[in-house]
């Protein structure tokens, strides 16, 4: 039990260093990549994929997992794209209503507008990050 606890304590700080060397078995990387994919952590999956070398026996599996990550990346990009279009549509609608001169009419839309604009910038950031990951994945 003591050894198990010690192993668990040491595993966390040592894991990243060991992973970064690329010397661990490909299957270990595949398992970790699939875990990251389950959590939609595309960045981590891309990092692990670029580090893993892909031994001969596991090369086809690594390729399939790479394609899975790429596919998920595209699905998420499409989702963000749809959200961006929807938010832009709402902003446009609110801007059209901006010609009302009374403050009590404009207050809530103005707050909403700020919220939508913040949301839009976040969505665009996520989109550009996923585009970057997609480019990296195509080159792995």
């Amino acid at each position, binding site marked *: 039990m003591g050894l198990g606890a010690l192993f668990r304590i040491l595993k966390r700080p040592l894991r990243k260093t060991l992973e970064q060397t690329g010397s661990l078995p490909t299957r270990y990387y595949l398992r970790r990549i699939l875990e990251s994919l389950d959590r939609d952590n595309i960045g981590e999956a891309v990092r692990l994929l670029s580090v893993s070398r892909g031994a001969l026996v596991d090369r086809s599996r690594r390729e399939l*997992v790479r*394609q899975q990550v790429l596919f998920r990346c595209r*699905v998420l990009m499409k989702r963000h794209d749809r959200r961006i279009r929807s938010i832009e549509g709402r902003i446009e609608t609110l801007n059209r209503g901006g010609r009302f001169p009374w403050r009590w009419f404009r207050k809530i839309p103005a707050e909403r507008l700020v919220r939508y604009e913040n949301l839009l910038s976040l969505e665009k950031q996520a989109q550009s990050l996923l585009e970057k990951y997609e480019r990296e994945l195509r080159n792995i």
Partner: protein
Amino acid sequence: MEKRELSFPGALVGALIGLGAEIAISELTGIDLITGILEIIGAGFGLIRIDRRIYESTVKLLKGMDVEPDDDYQNVLRRIDTLTIDLPELRQSFLKLMEAGLRAKKA
């Protein structure tokens, strides 16, 4: 059918003979037979487990696609086609899964 009786001394003798044979083989030929067999079995199980994990992930990816309630098979297929245009292996896996799903639905 005749009922077989398990014998503890028999198992012990069998284990001792096996151990003796393993030691004799490793002494005479230098090949660690049992370790080798265990490694092959372990690697086999490892491959089966990772294949199973990859399959589960493929199913999850397919389920995670944004499908509208009024989407039919052809629509989903078209969407998969556009998303997997340069991913032939994954497209094959998806098609096999969808065909299996359709067959199960028909049955």
